[in-house]
């Protein structure tokens, strides 16, 4: 058995877990860890310029690769800066391990310099956390952290390690097996419930697949496509479920919810059987609960029992891994596409009545056009990250996602500032494949310093700012619901984004026409430097359809006549 110090144990554990890259930011309490990081050859360390960005980058890496993302931060403010990243990953069930330095055990509780109760703060926004109190338990805790992060419903795990523990010497035996007597995720669904679900589906007339992010996490995308094809059941997705169905699949009705398509929301409202696959009935999807899918029985498949019947009552709950449950269901189902022909016809009519659309213009660039054009120009072999706001919803509506893990976006928390660091993390996961970050003029400024990270590490990503000189989504709400009182949303006074990009060592473009945009994107895609394309778009374009918060999901604002 090897004798190692705590910092060496961290490096060894990361090696044994197959970690390729760690994102982080050093500091006093993490000095021993960083000293060892300097010496080891197992993983690359990427220095972000803010701890929040380090966690978002680890998160983006995890979303794009399906592996566990890892970040290091120091104690006190280093850790508190990382909390937004943890919350973001927790909401979207992203596997990551955050290792934070802590003041020495003798100083804990004394209000020492850069001391904070890190495990107390992270507790509500992680799947699990640890404060390491002696060196003997460090190997087991590290092993458990990775295991808990990636199994069951994945999530972030935080390990807080005091400085003296990172220097203390102990025996290093990395456990081969994990035995946490209290943690046994259920993977296999109950056979009786699956059989019942098959019968209910066959007896239904207007069934609907409702696909969430869990479908991507469990690797069930291909199976869901087959299931839809075999049964002819149409599908709606959440924001997190985009890419599970091909964009051009006839059965794919697109995203439902507050900014979902008309047909998706009407399908929800008129379905008689909702088959929820790794989706958690977020309020942005359900709208007014009493009106949500009120004609439908609900089959809910989820690996997390606490997600079932949390918001809507599931008539047929199945706890288990979606991929495993669906494989079994496939074997049992006899439903044929012709059974649901009438239902699909009704939906096709809805789709032709109000398709997703926008009015293009030759005078001013429309954000939707920019997204559609980008999608056409780059095709499928790309990862797209977004920040949060109008641009995020337009990307969900107008970018053709055809593969799982193609979209990296903050769904549950809606974290502005997520896009750029997450794109950098995703770039580490996908190598040569282009990574494009759609952002807004509000969002990009929340983590703009990460342009530096990209330049230093030679990991270029393309950033497209849909610049309407507004906090667009808030402005949209102010337009619709606050009588155009644009309180603190006008961002007309802006930095020169082109110069900003250049000053960091990247390339910048400011574009106002279609031709300029196409040229800029072509140049950016070929560039070996990070790029910012500042696209001047229509200031008052709204994301439509829109369901006002708290309204029934079928009560959509379909156009904005008179709203400008």
């Amino acid at each position: 058995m090897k004798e190692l110090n705590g910092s060496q144990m961290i490096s060894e554990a990361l090696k044994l877990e197959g970690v390729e890259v760690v994102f982080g930011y050093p500091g006093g309490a993490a000095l021993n860890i960083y000293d060892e990081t300097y010496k080891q050859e197992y993983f690359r360390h990427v220095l972000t310029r803010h701890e929040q960005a380090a966690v978002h980058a680890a998160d983006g890496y995890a979303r794009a690769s399906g592996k566990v993302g890892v970040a290091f931060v120091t104690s006190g403010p280093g850790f508190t800066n990382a909390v937004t990243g943890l919350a973001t990953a927790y909401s979207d069930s992203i596997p990551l391990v955050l290792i934070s330095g802590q003041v020495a055990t003798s100083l804990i509780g004394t209000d020492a310099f850069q001391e904070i109760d890190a495990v107390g703060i992270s507790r509500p926004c992680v799947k699990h956390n640890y404060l390491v109190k002696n060196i003997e338990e460090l190997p087991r805790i590290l092993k458990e952290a990775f295991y808990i992060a990636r199994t069951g419903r994945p999530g972030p795990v935080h390990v807080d390690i005091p400085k003296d523990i990172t220097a203390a010497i102990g025996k290093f035996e990395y456990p081969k097996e994990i035995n946490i007597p209290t943690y046994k995720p259920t993977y296999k669904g109950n056979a009786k419930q699956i059989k019942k679900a098959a019968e209910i589906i066959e007896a239904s007339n207007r069934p609907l697949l409702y696909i969430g992010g869990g479908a991507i996490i469990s690797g069930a995308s291909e199976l869901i496509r087959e299931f839809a094809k075999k049964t002819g059941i149409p599908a709606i997705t959440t924001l997190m479920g985009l890419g599970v169905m091909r964009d051009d699949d006839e059965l794919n009705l697109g995203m439902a919810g507050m900014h979902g398509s008309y047909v998706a929301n009407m399908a929800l409202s008129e379905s008689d059987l909702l088959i929820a696959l790794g989706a958690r009935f977020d309020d942005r999807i359900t709208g007014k609960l009493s009106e949500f899918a009120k004609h439908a029985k609900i089959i809910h498949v989820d690996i997390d029992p606490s997600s079932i019947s949390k918001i809507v009552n599931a008539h047929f709950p199945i706890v288990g891994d979606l991929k495993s449950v669906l494989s079994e269901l496939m074997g049992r189902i006899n439903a044929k596409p012709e059974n649901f022909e009438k239902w699909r016809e009704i939906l096709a009519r809805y789709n032709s009545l109000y398709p997703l659309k926008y009015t293009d213009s030759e005078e001013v660039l429309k954000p939707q056009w920019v997204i559609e054009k980008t999608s056409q120009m780059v095709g499928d072999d790309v990862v797209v990250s977004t920040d949060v706001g109008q641009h995020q919803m337009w990307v969900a509506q107008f970018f053709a996602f055809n593969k799982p893990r193609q979209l990296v976006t903050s769904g549950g928390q809606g974290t502005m500032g997520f896009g750029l660091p997450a794109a950098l993390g995703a770039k580490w996961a996908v190598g040569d494949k282009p990574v494009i970050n759609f952002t807004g003029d509000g969002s990009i400024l929340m983590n703009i310093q990460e342009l530096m990270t990209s330049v230093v590490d030679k990991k270029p990503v393309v950033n497209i700012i849909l610049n309407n000189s507004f906090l667009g989504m808030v402005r949209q709400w102010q337009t619709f619901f606050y009588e155009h009182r644009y309180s603190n949303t006008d961002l007309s006074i802006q930095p020169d984004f082109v110069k900003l990009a250049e000053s960091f060592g990247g390339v910048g473009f400011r574009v106002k026409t279609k031709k300029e945009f196409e040229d800029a994107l072509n140049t950016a895609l070929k560039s070996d430097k990070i790029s910012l394309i500042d696209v001047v778009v229509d200031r008052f374009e709204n994301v439509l359809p829109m369901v006002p918060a708290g309204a029934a999901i079928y009560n959509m604002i379909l156009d904005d006549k008179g709203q400008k």
Partner: protein
Amino acid sequence: MRRVISVIVLNEHGVLSRISGLFAGRGYNIDSLTVAPIPESGFSRLSIVTSGDERVLEQIVKQLHKLIPTYKVIESGEFVEKEMALIKIPLNENFGGLDAILKAYNGSVANTNENYIIVMVADDANRIDNFLKAIKKFNPVDIVRGGSVLMDI
């Protein structure tokens, strides 16, 4: 609606905070919470008295299960439930009838000094309520009530 839940958890650093944090963060009520290690095991038992409808209770149980250190959540079935109270009464009170009340509630005198006597009683929550009403006439200066401890039958 009043609910009682018994939870068995790994006896590890911060576990009580995880449980109480779960209740606080999700807006569930805690009427009382007691905790102590289970002898000769690595586990602790928490006895929680809470309130809420069926739906809330179902979520509480699921969310408790979701915590990594949770081994078992017992919420159905019958429980023996006992709560404890200590009552401090000035010695200059007239103690006529105190004996009878203590006897009725299996109470006893826990301590005395030159100024006060301290009586104690252990019973179910309703009976403790009644005991405290009955003992009011002795003008107690301090009452300490412990949370319920539960054992499933």
